[in-house]
C-alpha cells in the first residue's frame, strides 16, 4: 500500500467510526480531494463533515480549535506545511495553552496535518520542513511517520486517542512510496526489523539492521522524509565499506524520544542525526544535547548532525540537491567518524 493510500483509508475509517471527526482545509472537496489527494473521496462519503474553506490558515485552525473545545475531533489539512507560519498564533497562543489557562476545564483534541519537504522543485515557499519552528512549544506533540511506519494507524491514534494538540507531519516525497511491510520473520527490503522500542506506545520508534547479528558501528537516526536517506546510506555503508549501521526511525519527533534512541547510541557509540530542515537549532541539535546528557564519555565520537544548509530552497532541482541532505553526505560523515 502507498503512504497516501494508508492516510486516506485511515481518514475514511476514522470518519466512519467516529461522528465527531471533521476534516477542514483548503480544496479538500472531491473531485480535487486536496492538493496531495489524502482527502480523496471523503467529501463524497461524509459531505457534512468535510469542510472546504477560504484561504486563511489562521481562520481554519481557530475554527477547528473551537470545534475541539466543544467536544469534536477536528482534523485540519494545511495544504503545504510552509503555510503553518500563518497558523502559528492559533497553535502557540491558543490551542496548546487553553488546557492550562482554563485549569483543565477544556481539552483541545486537535490534529493539524501538514505535508513537508522538498525535492519536488516547488521553490522556496513550498518545499521547507518548517516543523522545527514548533519545537519547544509546550503541549504540542509532533508526529512524522516514515514509509516504514503505518502512517494511517498513527494518524488514527493522533485523532482518536490523543487528547492534546498534534502536528502530524506528512512527507511530500513519501506520498507515492509503497510502505515497507515486514514479513512474518520481520524482514523487509534487505533489513531486519529489530525492535519497536516501546511498541505499545502511541507513536513507536522502529529499529532496522542489515545483519542478523546485533552489532552496529553507527546509529543513523531520522524521521519522516529523511528515513529513505538513512536506509539507503546504511546499505551503501555495508556494501562499500562493511560498516554496520543501525537505522533508528522514530515516529514521534517531539517530545524527543531519547529513551528510544539511547540503546542504539550506547551500542554503536556513534550516532548521526539526519533531518531535512535546517541544521541550525534543529532536531539533531537538541537530540545531540539530550544524548550527550546521558551518554557523555560513553560515545567514541560526538553526535553528528546532518541537515539542510541555512538558506532558502531553490526551485531548480539540481540546486535543491546541493542544499538538502543527501545519502552521500551521510556516507561521507560516517566514513569520517570511522577514520576511513
Amino acid at each position, binding site marked *: 500500500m502507498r503512504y*497516501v*493510500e494508508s492516510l486516506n483509508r485511515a481518514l475514511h475509517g476514522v470518519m466512519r467510526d467516529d461522528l465527531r471527526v471533521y476534516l477542514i482545509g483548503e480544496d479538500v472537496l472531491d473531485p480535487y480531494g486536496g492538493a496531495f489527494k489524502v482527502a480523496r473521496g471523503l467529501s463524497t462519503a461524509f459531505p457534512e463533515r468535510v469542510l472546504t474553506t477560504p484561504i486563511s490558515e489562521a481562520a481554519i485552525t481557530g475554527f477547528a480549535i473551537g470545534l475541539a473545545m466543544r467536544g469534536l475531533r477536528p482534523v485540519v489539512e494545511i495544504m503545504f506545511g510552509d503555510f503553518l507560519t500563518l497558523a502559528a498564533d492559533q497553535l502557540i497562543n491558543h490551542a496548546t495553552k487553553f488546557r492550562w489557562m482554563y485549569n483543565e476545564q477544556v481539552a483541545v483534541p486537535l490534529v493539524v496535518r501538514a505535508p513537508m519537504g522538498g525535492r519536488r522543485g516547488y521553490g522556496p515557499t513550498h518545499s521547507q520542513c518548517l516543523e522545527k519552528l514548533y519545537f519547544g512549544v509546550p503541549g504540542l506533540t509532533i508526529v512524522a511517520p516514515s514509509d516504514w511506519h503505518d502512517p494511517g494507524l498513527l494518524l488514527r491514534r493522533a485523532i482518536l486517542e490523543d487528547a492534546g494538540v498534534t502536528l502530524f507531519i506528512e512527507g511530500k516525497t513519501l506520498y507515492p512510496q509503497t510502505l515497507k511491510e515486514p514479513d512474518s520473520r520481520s524482514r523487509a527490503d534487505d533489513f531486519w526489523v529489530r525492535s519497536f522500542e516501546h511498541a505499545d506506545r502511541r507513536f513507536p520508534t522502529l529499529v532496522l539492521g542489515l545483519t542478523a547479528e546485533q552489532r552496529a558501528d553507527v546509529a543513523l537516526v531520522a524521521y519522516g522524509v529523511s528515513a529513505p536517506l538513512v536506509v539507503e546510506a546504511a546499505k551503501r555503508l555495508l556494501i562499500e*565499506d562493511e560498516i554496520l549501521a543501525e537505522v533508528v526511525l522514530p515516529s514521534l519527533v517531539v517530545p524527543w524520544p531519547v529513551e528510544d534512541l539511547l540503546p542504539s547510541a550506547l551500542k554503536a557509540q556513534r550516532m548521526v542525526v539526519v533531518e531535512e530542515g535546517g541544521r541550525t537549532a534543529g532536531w539533531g541539535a537538541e537530540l545531540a544535547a539530550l544524548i550527550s546528557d546521558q551518554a557523555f564519555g560513553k560515545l567514541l565520537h560526538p553526535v553528528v548532525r546532518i541537515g539542510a544548509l541555512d538558506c532558502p530552497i531553490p526551485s531548480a532541482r539540481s540546486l535543491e540537491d546541493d542544499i538538502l541532505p543527501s545519502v552521500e553526505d551521510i556516507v561521507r560523515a560516517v566514513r569520517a567518524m570511522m577514520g576511513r
Partner: protein
Amino acid sequence: MREQVHLIRVPRLGVNDEVTTVTEWHVADRQAIRPGDVLCSVETAKASYDVESDLGGYVLRLAAAGEAVAVTAPIALVVPDPAWLDSEEARGWVQDHMPADDRGKPQATHRALVLSEQLGIDLAALSVEGIIREADVRRAYEARLRPAGDGLIGALTWDPARLPVAIYGAGRGGVTVKECLESGGTYQPVCFLDDGSLGGSTVAGLPVISGALIAAVAKRGVGALALAIADARIRLRLYREAEKEGFHIISIIHPRAYLAPSASIGGGSYIKAGAVIDTNTLVGDCCIIDNGAMVAHDNVIGEGCHLAPGAVLGSGITIGPRTVVGIGASVSTKVTVGRDVIIAPGASVVTDIPDASVVEGVPGRVVGRTRS
C-alpha cells in the same frame, strides 16, 4: 524487423510518481489492435489512466495485471507481424529492453566480491541471509578447504626453544620477512598465510595456508603473526582483526637495523636491514622502515607509513598516518607532513605538507592529491 517494433511505455502522469500499477489489461497477447485502441488501465497515486497504442499491429504484454511498474518502463510491444513475437530475436530484444531484474541475485559487499573472485567462491551458492559480507566468503572458503587445510596446519612443527610465527603475505615481501626472522634467534617462521591463489603451495620452503584459516592456525599454537602486506590500509585492518583472532602481532626488527634504546616501534611494524632509527623517535603501528632508511632523532611517524629504501628524515619531524616516503627522498628537520601523503622518489621536502598531497621535486612541491 527490429526497427518496426514499437514499445509502449508507462506514462509519467505526475511529477511525484515513481511507480505505476497496471490495474487491468484490455487486450490479450498476440491480439490484433488498431491505432487508438486501449491496451490497459494504469493507476498512480493521483490518477488512473488508459494507455492507448498510437499504432496498429499485434500486441505482446510485458507486465502482469496488478504489477507495479517503474514509470517510463516498457509495458507492451506492438509489432506488424505476430509470428516475430515467437522468434529467438524477439526474446533477445525483449530482454535487452527490460529493466535489469536484480531480484534473486545475491547482494554482496565490495570486499566480499573481491575475495570471492580471489578464492573462486560462487556467491549464488552461499546460504547467507541478507547481504553477503567478506566474513561469509571466508567461512565458505574455509569450509571448502577444511580437509586439506587441517592436514597442513596439523603438520606444522617448530623448535620448542623458539616462538613460532605465521607470516601474513606470501609474496616477495613475505620472503624477506621470513629471512629476517630466521636471522634473529627468537622467532621461527612456520608458515605463510595468504588470501590469494597460493594456498596449499610452498613458498621459500614454508607451507602457504589460506588466510581464511587464520583462526585454526592460532589454535594450533602459532600465537604470533608477522605482517608482510604492502597496502597500508589492509595492513592496518589485518593488524586489528588478527588480534581478535587470538594472534599476537609482532614487530619485525632486523638484527642489523639500528634502533636507539629510547626509540619506540608500534605493533606490526617491519624495520628492515640497514635502517637507522635514532633517539626518542616514535614509529607508529604497521610501519615499514625499509633498507637503509635513516630516521634521525625525535621524529613521530604515524601508523601505516612506509619509508622506502634510502629515505632520509631529519629530526623533529611529524609524519601523518599512511604516508609513503619514496626511495631516496628526504624530509628536512622540523617539517610536518600530513596523512596519506606520497613523496616521490628523490624528492626533498623542506616545507610542511598538507594531508593527502603528492609531492615531487627538489625542493619538494605539492603536485597533486592522493585518493583518500
